[in-house]
């Protein structure tokens, strides 16, 4: 499996990372180096093996379904690059 420029561009798009056209061939070749390395996993016989879900077998704790936190609008917004009138502000998303 070899990754070409188009696949690299598609992955960058999915990851929401802007990659300039001229950088795509280098990126594709780095992908291929990493994927070539992980290709080895194909050698392992995994018949009947369950994929690991949790490394330490434990039952997730249940908790009361109640509000435990909140009312911290100012703190929540304090690190936002653009916050206005108590909201996060972003470029227009609806035409």
């Amino acid at each position, binding site marked *: 499996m070899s990754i070409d420029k188009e696949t690299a561009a598609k992955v960058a798009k999915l990851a929401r990372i802007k990659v300039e056209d001229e950088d795509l061939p280098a990126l594709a070749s780095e992908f291929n180096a990493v994927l070539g*390395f992980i290709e080895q996993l194909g050698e*392992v016989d995994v018949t009947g093996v369950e994929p*690991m879900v949790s490394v330490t077998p434990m039952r997730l704790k249940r908790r009361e379904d109640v509000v435990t936190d909140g009312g911290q609008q100012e703190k929540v917004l304090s690190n*936002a690059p653009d916050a206005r009138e108590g909201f996060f502000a972003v470029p227009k998303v609806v035409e």
Partner: protein
Amino acid sequence: MMPVSGNELSKMTIAEARDALRGGDVTSAELTEACLSQIEGAGALGAFVHDTPEIAREQARAADERIKAGDAPDMCGIPLGIKDLFCTRGVPSQAASRILEGFKPEYESTVSGKLLEAGAVMLGKLNMDEFAMGSSNETSVYGNAVNPWRREGDEAPLTPGGSSGGSAAAVAADLCLAATGTDTGGSIRQPAAFTGITGIKPTYGRCSRWGIVAFASSLDQAGPMTKDVRDAAIMLEAMCGHDAKDSTSADLAVPDFEAMLTGDIKGKRIGIPKEYHMDGMPAEIEALWAEGRKMLEDAGAEMVDISLPHTKYALPAYYVIAPAEASSNLARYDGVRYGHRARLAQGDGITEMYEKTRAEGFGHEVQRRVMVGTYVLSAGFYDAYYNRARKVRTLIKRDFETVFADGIDAILTPTTPSAAFGLGEMTEADPVAMYLNDVFTVTVNLAGLPGISVPAGLGSKGLPLGLQLIGRPWEEGDLLNTAYALEQAAGFVAKPQKWW
């Protein structure tokens, strides 16, 4: 002998300082000033990236009062460095990334909070690889951290390892008494080995991950980086414990780890895995490993040759699972809620904002891993890569379960396949060459086990080398005791010569 003069104070261990503080021989204020002055003179190491002297002085004053009142926990008054991956209230917490520039959390991570509640003093934040992705601290937005050790007769700057490179450099250079680290594939143990200090990654679930910037959530664990094994026991105990805010945190009692350091390992069965003999491994690493085997044998342990057959597949499995989880965890950096947002051009919409922000904010290695993760999770490849890697992970864990069921108490391996390398030496290599640094440590994360690196000797160029011990799940106390026996036998006391 107890160091007492001003510029010697930062060389103390946690245990020495604790006893001196309780005995009234030194104050936390004095210890803190000594560390602050060492930090001030150590800019060339690039270890501390956000200094917090005012906070430190205030915490030291409070600690001294608490010690005087007579109810101080072990960590009270101990000056520490905190890895930049931990969110610390009101103090920049950037994960060494441009994308978190200016981020000052409104909350404190559980682990750093526990240390501070115990009275520890925070000197500042420590350098690291960006988002903990790297093995040389060269992917940091702050620039490199530099190893206080140099090769004999050579001034070339060396890596302190990564990702907890700043933590390792700071502890090795006596800028602080100890530091926090985190370990996803070896990021505590490899830098500890490269700088001649001790570092332990506990069992997955021992330390709460809440408030620690997430890299690969099924692998990440925090742990202490210290000057010796006793200090690792003391500080680990203060960091561990159940936290309702982390659903994977274990609700188990935390034992008194220090009390378990007897040094008696008679009758312990310690495994030597044959798969860890790698082609092309330097002779000095093989020799150190053989010496370690002999040391433990002389201390009364029974050394057993064992097999962990899937070892070879640990790194490739890791380089599917860790990027996959990272691509999901790092999706939150979108330029909306915190950190950097790219300047937008006329007409740019929200997608351009995401794409430009993430291209500007993430460094090269982080971008690559996020994209590899995106690829292995994408439709059509999920089963071939991600699910297969998780199955291989099951087999890797089973390898360990099998030897433990056969009565093995701990496993001895080298920590790293080489001594510290030069900064810049690996930049031209393909990414996989850098990944090989974690070949002996990454299995431990995949299996969720505790692992510790103990400095065990100097290599041919005068650089420190570490041995790793891997323990049974939740048996950090027993593991620390075996490490303590190894430490006593190795008698490693070398320190880097000060050049900074």
